[in-house]
């Protein structure tokens, strides 16, 4: 029940953000789209058990949909055509956020680490592109706003670095290492 509520709240906030997306790419890309993804991630359907052999396929679905929504032309399409508009509100929660949540707990640490690194480097790449592009990337946005969005991408990358680095230094992995060391020393006895 709680998750339905949170998911619906994220969706409602994303709908509210619609008031500003036409004027501000930062709201569009770094507020509304993440909210839609969170809406899908929080859906209680995400507790469904995915058959083991489907995990890879479901992950690829999420990655492809994510990649499509990183194309500047998709953002323009979502603003200019009603089909793009509807597609944004349907595909990001259901085919990006939800599938990611469905498979996340089945992924090994290496894949998880790879996806996290990939997200950070992609955000930094987009940050560089949007601050340095000599032309307008989106027809619907001004050059100044494009640069602002570039800075936003860089800040988002920084935020993710901090968010994902904390657990590395925090207790769980330390405990794990200690445990292993203990076992190791035990064997040596």
């Amino acid at each position: 029940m709680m998750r339905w509520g949170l998911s619906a709240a994220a969706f409602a906030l994303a709908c509210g953000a619609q008031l500003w997306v036409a004027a501000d790419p930062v709201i569009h890309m770094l507020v509304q789209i993440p909210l839609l993804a969170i809406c899908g991630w929080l859906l209680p359907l995400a507790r469904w058990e995915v058959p083991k052999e489907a995990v890879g396929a479901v992950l690829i679905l999420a990655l492809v949909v994510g990649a499509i929504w990183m194309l500047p032309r998709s953002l323009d399409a979502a603003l200019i055509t009603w089909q793009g508009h509807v597609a944004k509100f349907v595909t990001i929660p259901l085919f990006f956020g939800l599938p990611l949540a469905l498979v996340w707990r089945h992924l090994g640490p290496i894949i998880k680490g790879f996806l996290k690194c990939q997200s950070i480097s992609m955000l930094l790449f987009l940050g560089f592109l949007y601050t340095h592009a000599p032309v307008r990337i989106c027809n619907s946005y001004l050059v100044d706003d494009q640069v602002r969005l570039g800075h936003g991408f860089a800040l988002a990358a920084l935020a993710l670095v901090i968010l994902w680095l904390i657990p590395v230094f925090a207790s769980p992995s330390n405990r794990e290492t200690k445990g292993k060391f203990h076992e190791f020393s035990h064997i040596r006895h």
Partner: protein
Amino acid sequence: MRGVLYTLGAALLGCATLWQATDGLRAVTAEGARRVSVARNPRPVPAVPVQTMQGDWVTIAENGPALVEFIYTTCPTICQISGGDFAELRDQLVDAGLDIPMYSLSFDPENDDLEALLNYADLHSATGDPWTAARPREEDLKGLLRTFDVTVIPDNWGGYEHNVAVLYINAEGKFAGAFDTRAFDQIQSAVESGAS
């Protein structure tokens, strides 16, 4: 084993989808998509009259082949640059013996009266033949911008930002190509292949 097959299938489908979504990796922006789309499927241009700076009314769609670019004369930056590029393009086409009408079309017909158009033309050495400045009627503007996929948004300084390109209209009056304003050779070959 089944898992590997499913994953491979999804990967193939995913690549095909991305290929489709980017027109074969050729267009990641809306501007790129417009260029690919019209080259593949030329679009009929609405047969609406535009008023040239000399005050004549012409229908560009019935005057094809022609080259068009969208401007507004009070534009301090990109329209002036593209005006200079249009002049260079005119010189190259005339030197090559290609006779094709060129229009700088204002998307701000309310503020761009004939005098403003004449001033803009004068500044860029557009004499009216083959290159003239012109403006559509207010009520036809929306349809024209939609046909040509021109997005105009107000900037914070009382002007506009808009996607700039040289637009090629073929002999059948269809919008058949969009090019960088300095892609002179590409434009010339489009004009030549249309003429033959």
